């Protein structure tokens, strides 16, 4: 995979992430009322007392970390595409390496599918645009995950022996 392919996939991931965060992943319509949830609002529903700690962990792993990963990757790639070394290159690469185990978008997808099946016993629950975005995001992130940013160290510093 060359640099431009990685850049294209990262832009795709950014777009899909925005859709998954703004549109409903799951929605229920019942008796005139409607509820919906997505990557961003799922954590917000657990705001009661000290259960907020679970919400914080969930928000960090399914929203904040994936977002940071995409932003940092875009930062590196935007500079690399014009043959420049991004400011903070070393810090960003180390951060990407450290963030990776805490990125849980695919867990959120599987959880959403299970929640959908679980709730469909009571109410008609429908997947929204966010669900399809989440499916796409999981696939794109899986492909990007195969690409090892560690290999960039050698690309960025050919002068070091």
């Amino acid at each position, binding site marked *: 995979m060359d640099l431009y392919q990685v850049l294209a996939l990262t832009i795709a991931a950014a777009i899909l992430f925005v859709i998954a965060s703004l549109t409903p992943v799951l929605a229920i319509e019942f008796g005139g009322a409607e509820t919906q949830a997505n990557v961003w609002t799922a954590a917000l529903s657990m705001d009661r007392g000290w259960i907020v700690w679970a919400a914080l962990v969930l928000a960090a792993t399914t929203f904040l970390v994936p977002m940071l990963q995409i932003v940092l990757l875009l930062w590196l790639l935007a500079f690399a595409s014009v043959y420049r070394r991004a400011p903070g290159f070393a810090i960003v690469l180390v951060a990407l390496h450290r963030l990776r185990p805490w990125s849980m978008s695919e*867990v959120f997808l599987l959880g959403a599918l299970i929640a959908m099946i679980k709730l469909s016993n009571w109410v008609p629950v429908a997947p929204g645009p966010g669900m399809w975005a989440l499916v796409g995001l999981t696939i794109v992130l899986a492909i990007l995950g195969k690409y090892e940013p560690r290999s960039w160290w050698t690309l960025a510093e050919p002068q070091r022996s």
Partner: protein
Amino acid sequence: MTLPGTAKAMGLVACRSCGLVSPLIDALRRGRCARCASTLHVRKTASAQRTLAWLVAGMLLYVPANLLPVMHTSGVGGGADSTILSGIVSFWRAGAWDIAAIIFIASVAVPATKFLSLGLLLWTVQRRSEWAKAHRTKLYRVVDFIGYWSMLDVVVVALTTALLQFKALGTAEPQPGIVFFCAVVVTTMLAAKSFDPRLIWDTRATDG
């Protein structure tokens, strides 16, 4: 089987963040990786102790995580608390054995595998065991990889409480068990991250 010496025995140290291999002398003098400025560790500091501490914490938290309810649902037929296990059982009884299996694997089998595997790794490393080193290294990678799937039930509870908010139909509320469960995932992940798989290979008297 004769094994090649460890990097440490050859006077080398690899950076855990960027992979650069530096001479040990540099690491001792500077303490930081020449390329990415991460702290260099020949072996992770107090790896076994920290792993054990996180592991014990995770095991203790696992008890309330399973005993306390994770969710309270109330509807026309009255209210009910559900725990992780009762959730699995209700899926099973409803005939959804596949969903029950997925939640069982993520919420019960994965944490249990982590407790057993990390316990085994710690015990064998302490004894400087020569047994199945390559397989134990692989076991560590598996444990490190599967850990985060345990967050599955937290996602399911969060989505259910966000969606099931109908007075006429039923409402769902998160319960304290979910916080303990979240804590189990975080502590066991930190336990796996604290463990240094290179310790598996430090079995000669001159090592470690």
